[in-house]
Every structure is written in C-alpha cells, then in structure tokens.
C-alpha cells in the first residue's frame, strides 16, 4: 500500500498536497468540484484585521507559461472570516484541514490577526504568515525582503499563538536561505516557498502596464525552476519542514519539489487552468510511487542525487 500521509512535525496531513493561498479562494468556491477533505490542506486567501478592497483593475495578465497578478489581498477581514457563513464556518463543516494565510500592514497587525485566530482556533490547523506579497505597499514584501522586519513579524506571531506557524518566504531576495534560517530561529514551525516573483508586462499598443498596480507577481510553470532551486537551497539551510510551490501542474512536478527537499507542496495557478489539478496531483504522486515502488511518500523528501 502506498502511504501518502505526511508528518509536518506539529501537523499531520493525509497527503502532501495543499492549495496555494489566494488561488483557491476560501475553499467554498471549489466545493462543487471535489470534497475539500481530499486535500492535504486548504490554505485560504490572505486575511488581515480589516476588510480590504485590494488593488484597482486590471489585476491579472497572462504571460508565457504563467501569469502576473496584483490582486492586492482583497478580503473580508478577520471577524467576517471567522463568522461569515461562507468562510470559516463552512470550512469547519467541510472537514478540511485548514491553514489560514495572514498578513498585516504593521507588525502589530500581524500579531493581532494571529491572536484573533488563536482565540477562535477550532478547525484551524496552522497559520501561514505571508511576508511576501509583492502587491501591497505596506506589509507584504517589504517585510519579506528585510530580514529584521521579517524576524519581528514572525516573533510577534509566535508570541500571539500556540498554533503551528508557517512562514511564507519571498523569492525576491538574494539569499532565501538566510530568510529561512531567520524564520527557524524566530520559532516558525515550517516555511513555505515560493511566493510570486515580482514582474511587469507592458501593452505596447496602449503603452500602459498590463496590471493597474504597474508590477505584479509572476506565478505558474514559468517560475518552477526558480522555486525548485530555492527549495533545494532552503532544505540545506534549515531543519524545519518545507512546503514547496511554484508552477506545480502535475504529480511529477510535485515529486520534483519533494526530491529537492519539500515535505509537502501547494498547487496554485494550475487550479485556474484545471480546478481538479490538486486532486490530479495527488493521483499523480500515487502513480509515481507505485511505478517506483515507493511505500511512504516521505522517502522522497530531499532524495535528489547530486
């Protein structure tokens, strides 16, 4: 029997496949496609204290083997998220393992969101700290590219909750391994990577940026080689589990991330192309394991032969 369950230290998943924050809404949008509890975990879109409008439109643009987005973290705010019928209450009923992606405009706001979720933690398996959104002026990537600010945010969240915390790292840095080490040192239980790479596209006819925010985050297959490299670098730098993502479309892509050092993976942009992508990725990992006679999926972690 192939065993896909995975132990991430403080949390156990039935399989290593999650949805990437921001690409799966709050789960409810895809509940008609498959039962959410088939996933390793559902990672919901970034939540802060207040409701947020997000950025002006256009917010997305298609580019070669990927897309740019600058949604700007539109969201309902933590209160509505916890109590609005289509958010956390729905997720609790779905039986899914839920990871809540959080952000704030200040270190203090990160702390507050974490505390608010901690206080109402039923059904929340972990918090993912987003210090890497390239599309908001305050918060986001400003924290993710400055190692001192990043450490402050992680320590503040650590102080506010006993829930497992995952720090989501930005690829827009010279050495992502340094940020992973800082996360580990500040008590992060896991790291997830990569968030999107800052990019830009210009419509040559109108001469305007294709994204109203001027720059946006690049995701999809285009970034996979960069993401795999970063997972490999981080795996050599820290002992805490890694959740790998960036352009995963198939089970073999997921295996590639695990061989590089990821203990679990997240599927993002692929969901827009095929809502069934996460389920197909799980099936693809299973097929790969069957073909190569691998019994426990954790055997793949970091097993690249260099």
């Amino acid at each position, binding site marked *: 029997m192939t065993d896909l369950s995975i132990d991430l230290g403080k949390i156990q998943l039935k399989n290593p496949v999650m949805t990437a924050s*921001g*690409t799966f*809404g709050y789960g409810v*949008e895809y509940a008609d496609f498959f039962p959410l509890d088939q996933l390793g975990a559902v990672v919901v879109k970034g939540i802060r204290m207040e409701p947020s409008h997000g950025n002006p439109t256009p917010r997305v643009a298609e580019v*070669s083997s990927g*897309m740019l987005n600058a*949604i700007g973290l539109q969201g309902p705010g933590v209160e509505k998220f916890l109590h609005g019928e289509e958010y956390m209450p729905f997720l609790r009923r779905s039986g899914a393992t839920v990871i809540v992606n959080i952000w704030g405009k200040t270190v203090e706001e990160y702390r507050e969101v974490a505390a608010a979720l901690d206080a109402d933690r039923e059904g929340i398996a972990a918090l993912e700290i987003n210090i890497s959104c390239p599309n908001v002026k305050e918060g986001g990537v400003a924290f993710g590219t400055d190692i001192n600010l990043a450490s402050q945010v992680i320590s503040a969240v650590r102080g506010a909750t006993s829930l497992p915390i995952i720090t989501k790292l930005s690829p827009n840095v010279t050495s992502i391994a340094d940020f992973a080490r800082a996360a580990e040192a500040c008590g992060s239980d896991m790291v997830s990577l990569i968030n999107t790479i800052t990019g830009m596209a210009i419509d040559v006819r109108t001469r305007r940026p294709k994204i109203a925010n001027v720059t946006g985050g690049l995701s999809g297959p285009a970034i996979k080689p960069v993401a795999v490299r970063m997972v490999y670098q981080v795996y050599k730098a820290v002992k805490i589990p890694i959740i790998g993502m960036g352009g995963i479309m198939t089970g073999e892509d997921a295996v590639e991330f695990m061989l590089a050092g990821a203990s679990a993976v997240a599927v993002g942009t692929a969901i*827009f*192309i*095929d809502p069934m992508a996460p389920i197909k990725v799980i099936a693809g990992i299973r097929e790969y394991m069957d073909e190569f006679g691998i019994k426990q999926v954790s055997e793949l972690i970091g097993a690249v032969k260099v």
Partner: protein
Amino acid sequence: MPQHGEIISNEILKDSYRKVVFYVPDIAAKTQPGQFVHVKIANLRDRILRRPFSICNVTPDGMLTVVYKVVGSGTEILAELPPGTVCDLMGPLGNPFTIGDDDELPVIVAGGYGSAATYLLAQRSPAKGILLLGARSSDDLILTEEFKSAGFEVRIATNDGSVGHHGLVTELVADVMRENPKRKMRFYGCGPFGMLMALGKMLTRGGMDGELSLDHLMCCGVGACFACVVKVKDESNADGWRYARTCKEGPVFQAHKVYYPEEN
C-alpha cells in the same frame, strides 16, 4: 467538473467574428441566458489560462454555441481548431439574466459581442421586444437576422453612421422610452464597459432599473481569485462601494447596484 466539449463546427460568422458549436450536453442542459463557459482552448501553447465566452445558444440535443471575435492569441488558435477537436469547458458559470413576464417589453441594449450574449435571452423571453444594437460600423453588427427570427425588432446605431442611427446606442434608449410611455419595460445591457456605465446611469437616474452584464478579464471563473472585480455599491462599507467578482456575483448585476465612475 470541467467537461469535454467536442467542436462540431467552427466557422466565420462575419469578418473577425466566428461561431463555434460544441457538443457538451451537461452544460447545454443547464444553461440559462447570460451565463458563460470558461474554455481551455486546445493547443494553447505557452498561454495557459482559460478564456471566458458567453453562451449564445444551446439546443436540447447538447449543442452549445459561442460567438467570438478574434482578438488575440487564444481566439486566433480557437479559430484554427477543426471540428473534432476536443476542448475543456467549465460551465454554465455566473448568474443569468432574469426572464421577464409576458406583459413586459424586453429591451436589450448591446454592443460588441453583446448580441451573442443576449440571444438566448431573446429566444426565451415570453414577450418579444427590441434589440438596440450599437457598433463602430456595419462590420461589427452580428446576429441581427437571428434576433429578427426570434421575433425581436432590431434598431441599430453606428459610430460612423454606416447603418442606422449615427451615434451612440444609448441614444436609442430614450426613443424607446418615449415611444412606450405606459408599457412595463425590462432593460438588459451587454457590451463594452463604457456603454454599460452610460446605460446604467441613464436608467437609474431616470428612476428605472435594468440588468447589466459586466464582464471583466477573468482568471478562475468561479470566484476564487478576485481578478474580475467591478465596483458595486455597498452601504455597509465606509467607502460606499466594494469590489464584486463578475464571474461569481455577476456577470449580470442590477443597474442600481453598480457603482458608477463619476461617483468616485
């Protein structure tokens, strides 16, 4: 679940407009006027996202028609696909138009591919009404004969005056109102954003309402990504508006719920 949709025919309708028929019974059976399908075009090379298209028509035997304009890489590739090619369709997606009662006069105001997006509405409306169709020039006028066959009166406005009224289609709306002072009317709008904003303001200022199909660049098509938003009124919000997802909360919105640019 995404469905396989086999292309049955894929032909030129007029100039850069094409008409493609998919065999996709599960979607066709559920379709209501104003809904759309989200299509993964076969052979899309390095452009990976789906393309949304309004459903122009469906038949009981499982055929679903889309009328599309060739504007970029995706529609160019779609235009080349021969019958027999299988695409992957999600749908029907989005909220439909409300079909009126038989004592209401349906007035459809359309531009661009708007006539395609409202054809099924015309077909299914119990009362036959009027299509007000705007276009840059006569080249952009599509489906006028089909609307006439569906029992609709067709009035045209072109920017260059090549056919019909020389001017904006919204200018024809006033005529219709004037001609039918006593008649209960139901307005529908589908077309370019600017046209819909003008129509929506005109209606709401005149104390009337209507349904506008507001689409926007889409990505997921099901409400998950927040790419496709437009501003709608929201009193519970300090700013008086919020961004609503056209794919999930729309594409059809009540005109009086839309937040109009000047109000910014």
